[in-house]
Each structure stands twice: as C-alpha cells, then as structure tokens.
C-alpha cells in the first residue's frame, strides 16, 4: 500500500477535525441559547475525539509521534487542514453555515471510507457514523429553520453561504496522491467526494430558500492541504499550546 498517500489522507482528516473541533468549542458558554451551547460543545468533543483517533492510527500504523505531540507540537506549515476550518467562529450564521458545509463533506467522506481497503480507517469510519449522522441532522435542522425563519435571518444565512462556499470548496483540494488512493481502493478521491457533496447540498440549499452561489465562477480557496494557511491558524496554534510551552518538560 502507498504509505505516503494514506498518511497524507489521515493528516488532512485529523487536522480538519482538530481545528474545527477547536473552533466549535469556542461556542461553549456564549451560544445564542443554552441548547446551542450544548450542541456545539458536544460536536466539538466528537470532532476532537475523531482527531485523536486519526492521529492514533498514524501513531500505531505508521510510527508517527503520539497523538498529543502531533496535535500540540507540530509547526503550522506541517498542518494539512483546509482553510475553511481555520476561520474564526464569527457570528452564529457563519459558524452554522460552515458546520453545514463541512459536516456534509465529512459524512460523505466517512461513508466512502467505510469501503476502504485500509482496514483501520474503514473501522473508524464505521465507528463514527452514528455521531456524524447527528452532526448533519443538527446542521440541516438549523440551516433550514434559520434560512426560513425571518427575513433578517435569511439574509444573514445567504451572506454567510456566499462567503463560506469558496472556502468549503477548498476541502476538496486534490492531493499529490489522488491516483494512488483511488487505484488501491483506499479512498474514492477528492473530485468524487466534491461531486457527491454538491449533489447532496444543492437541493438542501434550494429547500431552505437560498441561492446556491454560481459554481462555474466560484473560486476554491486552496493551499491548506499543502501547508499554506490563512492568517488565523498560527494564532490558533499558539493559543492551543500556550500551557504546554510554559514547561515543555512537564506532564500536564
């Protein structure tokens, strides 16, 4: 099997999960209502748990460093997360639209991976299916309710969608290993995933009464998968490692 290809895929997924989990956890205590605080907290725990599980596959199957080192001690340029997950939480409209766009991609990615020839990732995909299903249900419910709830909310959701979509397309930035992943039955590839994703979200956006931004002119924000990040990732990582850097020799 193409080890480098699998490792690259695992890093992308783990870094996405860690960073979106980090961002979603910022809603703890300040959500628009207590129920949403609780929902975002739950989802962030799940995502951070997925990141830990993915880093753990890198650790046990490929001899990479342990999950804590991979998450808390890597340089910014080594992260493979897409820029969508790095963006600040902004207002609730943006966080919710990002959650909708990201989690549909995530759900489809894991469902493709259930058939992966790389057993550890197929096993994990089956394990997290239940959790991700709830994330998508939450996203769909609020996406629709807010988009149809009032004129103000609808306008906000449309703006957030217009802003977030090019970043969401960055989720599917192709890697150098697409052909190998597909040929070896590890993963169906980013292009296929993007196609499935568009098929999935387009009718949902329409049902919510919003306009899908024009796909032929939308410009995907690439770079994250190759280590070129937005200006928001470095401060996020600095914050994440603030405590450990006080005394790196200590156990925390």
């Amino acid at each position, binding site marked *: 099997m193409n080890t480098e290809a699998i490792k690259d895929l695992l890093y992308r997924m783990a870094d996405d999960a860690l960073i979106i989990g980090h961002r979603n956890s910022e809603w*703890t*205590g300040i959500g*628009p209502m207590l129920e949403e605080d*609780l929902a975002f907290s739950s989802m962030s725990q799940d995502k951070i748990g997925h990141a830990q599980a993915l880093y753990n596959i890198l650790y046990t199957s490929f001899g990479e460093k342990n999950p*804590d080192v991979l998450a*808390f001690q890597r340089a910014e340029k080594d992260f493979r997360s897409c820029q969508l997950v790095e963006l600040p939480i902004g207002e609730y409209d943006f966080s919710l639209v990002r959650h909708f766009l990201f989690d549909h991609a995530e759900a489809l990615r894991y469902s493709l991976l259930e058939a992966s020839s790389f057993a550890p990732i197929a096993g994990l995909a089956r394990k997290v299916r239940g959790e991700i299903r709830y994330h998508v249900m939450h996203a769909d419910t609020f996406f629709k*309710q*807010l988009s149809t709830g*009032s004129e103000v909310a609808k306008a906000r959701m449309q703006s957030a969608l217009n802003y977030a979509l090019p970043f969401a397309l960055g989720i599917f930035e192709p890697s150098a290993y697409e052909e190998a992943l597909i040929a070896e039955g590890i993963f169906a590839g980013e292009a296929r995933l993007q196609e499935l994703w568009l098929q999935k979200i387009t009718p949902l956006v329409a049902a919510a009464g919003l306009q899908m931004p024009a796909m032929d002119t939308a410009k995907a924000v690439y770079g994250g998968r190759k280590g070129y990040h937005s200006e928001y990732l470095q401060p996020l990582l600095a914050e994440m490692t603030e405590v450990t850097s006080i005394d790196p020799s200590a156990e*925390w």
Partner: protein
Amino acid sequence: MYGNTSLTAEEAKIVNSTVEDPEKLAEFEARITRGEKIEPGDWMPDQYRKQLIRMIEQHAHSEIVGALPEGTWITRAPNFRRKLALIAKVQDEVGHGQLLYSAAETLGKTREQMLMDLLSGKSKYSNVFNYPANTWADIAVIGFLVDGAAIVNQVINSKGSYGPYCRALERICYEESFHLKQGHDNFVYLATGTKVQRDMLQEALNRWYRPLLHFFGPSDRDSQHSEKLMKWKVKLASNDDMRNQFLDQYVPKILELGLTLPDPELRRGDDGIWVFGDPDWDEFKRVISGDGPCNAERLEVRRYSELAHRWVREALMNPKEKYVTPLA
C-alpha cells in the same frame, strides 16, 4: 456551581411578615414536616414561591456565568485528555443552567425574563465567578475547590422541599462528583509536578483562598435569618455550617500535598470549628455590589451572547405557539 443565598434585612422582614391563609399554610407546613415534596401545581405561600425563584434563578445564572472563566481555557488545555474533559465539564455546567432555568420556570418566571434580569443586574450570581482565571492552575483550583464547595452547598439543598429543584440538584450533584474527580486529578498533577507547575498552583491557591471563604456568604453573625425559610426547607444550613464543612473536608487535602494557605490564623479548633483570619468582608460586599475584577466582563459576554443572537431566537420562534409554564 453555586454559593449560597443571603437575605438583606428588608427582604427578611418581608418574608417574615407576609400573612397567608392560615388553614392552607398549616396544611402546607405539615406536608413539609412529613418530608413530602411540594410540586409545581400545589398551593404554596407567596414568599415561598418568590424566594425559591430567586434562589433557583441565581443558581442557574451562576452555572452559565461560571462556564465563562473555565470556558476561556478550553482552547488552551494542554493535551487531548484535559481538553476533552474540560469541554465536557463546562458543557455540564451550561446543562445545569438549562436544567435549573426549567426548574425555576415551573414557578412562573420565564427563562427570557430571568436572563434579562441577569443582564440588568437585578438578579445576581455567585460572587466567586467575578474573579479571573489567570493561569491553567486556576482551572485546577476551580475544578477541585470551587466545585468542591459547590457540592457541599448543593448536596444540602437537594434535601429541600421543592420537588423540581431537588430532582435537578440530585442530577447536578451526580455530575459534579465527576467534575471534582477531574479537578482533583489536575490539581494533584500540578502539585506533584515540576517546580514551575507547583509554583503556579500555589499562586493560584493564594488568589482563590479568600473568594473560597466568601463563597458561602457572610458569617451567621452578620447575615439575616428567616425562620420561615428554614421551616419551609428553602434554606437548610447556615452559611457558617457549610463553610466549616468545606474547610473540614478540603484543608487537609490541600496541606497533604505540601501546599500552604495564605492565612496564619487558620486552624481547626478542639470543638471541630475552623478558625480563620478576617477574609475582608468589605471586599466581598464591594464585589457583590458590582465592583469586582470581572463583574463587567462577565456581564458583557452574556450581553453579547443574548443580544447579538436575538435574531437566531426570533427566527426559531413559531408565532403560532404560546408560552406554557412547564410542569416539572
């Protein structure tokens, strides 16, 4: 997490002087003496309802404001284990708020009204959350000692007379016992760690010692009592009794780890009563009346959360539905 409720002289006077239907009152008090729980639809004295709303509401506010100092450390927690535990813990606190607002709603005040009263300053929350969490060690002190103090108070209150509040507290105490474990684990890690970690913890402990003494409210000598609230099992133990129970349980655990407390007068008397130096009750009064290190910041964050997201709540509201007071 919550401290304790105290009455002003004027409030105590109102509670003690309000006249109720004597027959109904006698039956109500007999039920409480028999150990029965009072449920939402039951007859209850006006002052019983008012004081319970005030107390449960303050408790609920304390949970959601209490989520803020710890919440700011979620993104800085040093590894997967601590990060996941802290998110879950803070999430529990917000969940306690949700549970308690529902319990208070059964008495006839809506969550929206309670939150507005929090923002206007009409309704209070536990004073201890007006202090900052400056370092990761503060999170250990809060998780172990502030939660520990809150458990003392909440276990006692769960034996009260109002059914929905007691049931909420039982569940809260169950979850809090896990918080205490994670707080204790973090506390012990730092106390037995490197010199940098031990120093951090000692400094945090020095900062939190006074707010922890203040946690249970003013000394019994200086606070207003209401025999009625005791008889109605709204208030179940005096401030000094609870504080003493806390010191008895926790001071030995702190000293055992080689840490110190910044109070040369602190000692356990032969009668089992702890003696401590003056914790500066003037500061307590100052902070409770709004002039503490974080009062403005805490309310500002809550105000942002409430006002900036009004559009979300409005969009979710169904205009055909009418508000109904929940039953339990």
